[in-house]
């Protein structure tokens, strides 16, 4: 039976609605296993639909929704990473059912952003994403209240600024669609508000001070979701907004985003140097990675955007993989770097995997991180932003210092050896992230052409 490519759109809609419906029903039934299997099946179905849409090149446009290769690729990424987080969170026995239902709502919001053709969709989508995330953090354990409250207050600030920015945009253009806006003072002010509010979502300095606290205090699978998925949604929104609505202001936003990228890279890397808590260290490193991703958007060329999309994919998998190892260590109450000494003796797989993820963060050849950073820095050079590329390289080398500190402590010998067994769900997540990190590091061509196609689709809108 052949399915017409356009039917996948119908299938996608049904699957997304079913995902939420099934979650509500299984939640009421109080069956963890049921809910988990239903989630996995539905997410896999959505991923298959999106994959088929991507390969058959479906383009559909309505007033509020626009489906092309850009949104399909990123929605596919969001689905797969959400699947990974679902597998990871299955270890948190009691809170899993609540998390699953909240995450399905958050995923709905993320799709809104990825498929958005208007500011309203982005606004609703971000709101729909962030609220369930906060509830999930809040409901997991008592210690997380602080994390949730911080996230809530700053997100409220950010959403109100976004609303205000959209209002100003409407004032200047008489439209809330993501269309090319004419140059006017009001629209320029709108751009500033929107950059500030999306800077919160994408954890860019100076709108990201909540990040280390919230990442550290949240349950670890939610840290994975915050850094691996939610943050990327912020970048998707940023790319759509600046490249579709504010093309006229390329000089302005390019300069602003360059400066923000530089501040973000230095802020993340320099503070990470002195961190002892591995989870917090990864949080700061994620901040600096946001700075690298922003380089491609600041360049604002088609190649730059494809580099950013590539690095978004790369960082999602490396981050979730690294966070999964942190979750594995937390089960044994090991949090600081000195607890990681001799991990190679206790569990070779965990130590090797975390080393590879860190080498990927650094940008070592034969990992996905190298290709991403190479694309970003070369796009900056081609876009005549040589300084940005050099600062990026300087930061990459500063970051070697703290990543190597953790790697070396894992490979140090120690006297007393104990064997740590890894839970199956964590091992599955780590293995998948590891395969992506290495496979696309050695043979990156499929992902490069996919992100190139996504970038050209965005420019063709």
């Amino acid at each position: 039976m052949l399915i017409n490519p356009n039917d996948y759109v119908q299938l996608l809609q049904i699957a997304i609605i079913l995902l939420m419906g099934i979650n509500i029903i299984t939640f009421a039934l109080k069956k963890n296993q049921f809910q988990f299997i239903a989630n996995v099946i539905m997410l896999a179905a959505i991923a298959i639909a999106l994959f088929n849409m991507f390969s058959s090149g479906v383009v559909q446009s309505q007033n509020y929704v626009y489906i092309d290769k850009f949104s399909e690729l990123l929605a596919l990424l969001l689905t797969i990473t959400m699947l990974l987080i679902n597998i990871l969170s299955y270890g948190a026995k009691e809170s899993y059912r609540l998390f699953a239902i909240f995450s399905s709502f958050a995923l709905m919001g993320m799709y809104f952003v990825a498929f958005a053709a208007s500011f309203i969709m982005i606004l609703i989508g971000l709101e729909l994403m962030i609220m369930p995330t906060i509830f999930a953090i809040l409901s997991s354990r008592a210690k997380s209240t602080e994390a949730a409250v911080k996230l809530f207050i700053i997100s409220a600030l950010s959403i109100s600024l976004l609303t205000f920015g959209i209002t100003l945009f409407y004032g200047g253009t008489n439209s809330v669609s993501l269309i090319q806006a004419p140059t006017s003072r009001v629209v320029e002010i709108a751009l500033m508000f929107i950059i500030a509010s999306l800077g919160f979502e994408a954890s860019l300095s100076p709108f990201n001070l909540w990040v280390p606290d919230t990442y550290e205090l949240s349950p670890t699978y939610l840290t994975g979701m915050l850094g691996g998925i939610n943050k990327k949604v912020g970048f998707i929104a940023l790319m759509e907004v600046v490249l579709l609505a504010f093309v006229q202001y390329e000089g302005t936003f390019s300069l602003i985003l360059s400066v923000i990228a530089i501040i973000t890279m230095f802020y993340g890397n320099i503070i990470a140097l002195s961190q002892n808590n591995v989870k917090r260290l990864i949080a700061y490193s994620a901040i600096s990675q946001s700075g690298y991703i922003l380089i491609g958007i600041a360049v604002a060329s088609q190649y730059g955007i494809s580099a950013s999309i590539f690095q978004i994919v790369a960082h999602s998998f490396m981050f979730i993989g690294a966070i999964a190892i942190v979750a594995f260590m937390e089960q044994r109450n090991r949090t600081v770097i000195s607890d990681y000494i001799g991990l190679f003796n206790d569990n070779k797989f965990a130590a090797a995997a975390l080393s590879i993820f860190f080498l990927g963060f650094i940008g070592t050849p034969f990992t996905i991180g190298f290709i991403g950073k190479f694309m970003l820095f070369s796009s900056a050079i081609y876009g005549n932003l040589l300084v940005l590329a050099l600062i990026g390289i300087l930061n990459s080398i500063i970051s070697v210092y703290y990543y190597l500190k953790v790697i070396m402590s894992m490979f140090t010998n120690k006297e007393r050896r104990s064997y740590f067994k890894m839970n199956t769900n964590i091992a599955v997540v780590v293995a998948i992230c590891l395969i992506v990190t290495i496979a696309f590091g050695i043979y990156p061509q499929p992902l490069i052409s996919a992100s190139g196609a996504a970038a050209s689709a965005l420019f063709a809108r």
Partner: protein
Amino acid sequence: MIFELAIIPIFIALLVLAALKKENRAIKAIALVGSITPLAFLPSMIQHMGSITSINWLSIGPASLPITFSILPINVLLFATISIIAPLVILYSWGYMDKKSEDKSFYIEMLAFEISMLAFSIAGNFILILIAWGFLSLTSYLLIGFYGKPESARAARKTVTIILIGDIAMLTGAILLWHSFSTFQFSSIISIMQSSPINVTAQVAMLLILIAALTKSAQFPFSGWLPAAMEGPTPVSAFLHSSTMVKAGVFIVIILYGMFQAANLLPLILAIGIISALLAISNALYETHIKRILAYSTIEELSLMFVAIGLGAFSVAIYIFIVQAFYKALLFFYSGILIKANSNEDIYGMRNASKNKPMYAAALIGVLSLAGFVPFSGFFSNVSLESAAMSNSLLIYLLVLIIDLAVSLMIMRWFTVSSASETKKTVDAKRTVNYYLVSKHMYLSMYIMAFLTIISTVLILYITSIGSSMVGFGYNVNSALILSPIEAAIATAAVVAGLAIGYITFNNKQHKDASLSILLFNNALTDKIYYYLAAFFFEMSIMLSDLDFIINDIFDRMGEDTSYSSGIVRKVQNGQISTYAIIFAIGLLALLAYMIIG
């Protein structure tokens, strides 16, 4: 025809094999076979001499990453040197690394180290250089910190700080060059730079690459890490000091000679070489740790290579570059045997080495080669370097002569003190010294190395033709090598004087601190001047090598944990949500202010 690439799969296969096998004997054998394999590629490399092959590794959008292999005579020379010395080092390790548990990771790391250096030796563009450079740093870091003692961790950390400075400089320099010439390939950049007037960007880039070379070759002011790296196992030191790692810095200056020439950096290279040599040799005269003396002498030899390059004596630089590898490996092999036999690392703790006649004779070959005694390789390198210096200026000539004299004194002190016979009857019965218990593999590789040291002298006959053949490949160099009889006579006199003073002074073990007073005729005033000078240079040098502690100190104050940190960041990252909101608002206001002003 990219036959060089065949090395990589062979090595990967060997690494996998080594990782899978459980028996130690198998791992040792595999490591030896693996390390000797590259020799098989030499005939075909010589056949394709002068070819430059480029393959495209990655091509993304407008950007591409080509990897270029270059088979020029100097590349082949280094390749051959590595692949001759590596199997001997592995054979030596069979005896030296006697703890069974350490075998596997040690041999794998050594093989990885060798591959990185082999890739480095045939690199024809910056991409391959950078990859090999990174892997060299990583593997050397692992090998230096191999024993996992606190001191070795500290040494490895010190090493990594300096190496990172080099990495930043290297990457930035390569990117700046690419930005100005839009190519990574050496031969293209050299021809462009030699034909057009130099611009500032290219000059800055070359300066950065020079800094990178200085960090790798442990030259002033980055020399602090090499003596500290002596904490590693002796085979590692032998390998690291002879043909790998520290040679990388000099080698990059040799192959980029045309660029440094075009950027007018040769006088700077000369000055740095002289300063480093003086600094290193004065430290070597103080030191009593058997391997650390050799480390300082390595720095001094590398400095002389820089001096030769700075003088424009291209062939001399290549000659010292190759022959030094053999006699330095030989001396490290000897010191490893002494360490094993005496269970001590101080030269005053060694005894009765002269009783073992074959070993003593083999070591003497190394000592005389290093000192520059008449028929040995060091003699030719001394004389040719001094002749080149003489044609430049008298001052440089005198400085080089003083350095040569001090070198012969230093190595004689090292040799005499460490091999002196035990005369007193107060020997601890438990600490018997038995050279017959040391593994025969260590002796075997030492004797082969002594033989190779003598053979390597013959290179002097061919070095001029090698140098002039480089001219054919676009290297605008002066390949002449002068051996004037007057310089030879003066050099011999200086070396004999140094050896004689060293032997007479240190033959009885009384003069523990005699080094300084002998060099400066025991004068209180000169003693003081010397002390301050040495102290000044030493401080300059350790200032940079201790940079990691300064960095750490700053950041410890800045960041740490939110609950007990201090400084600027504490005020910002204080866990208070109101502060975060205020910072957010400041950021927004800054954006709006920019919009209003701009």
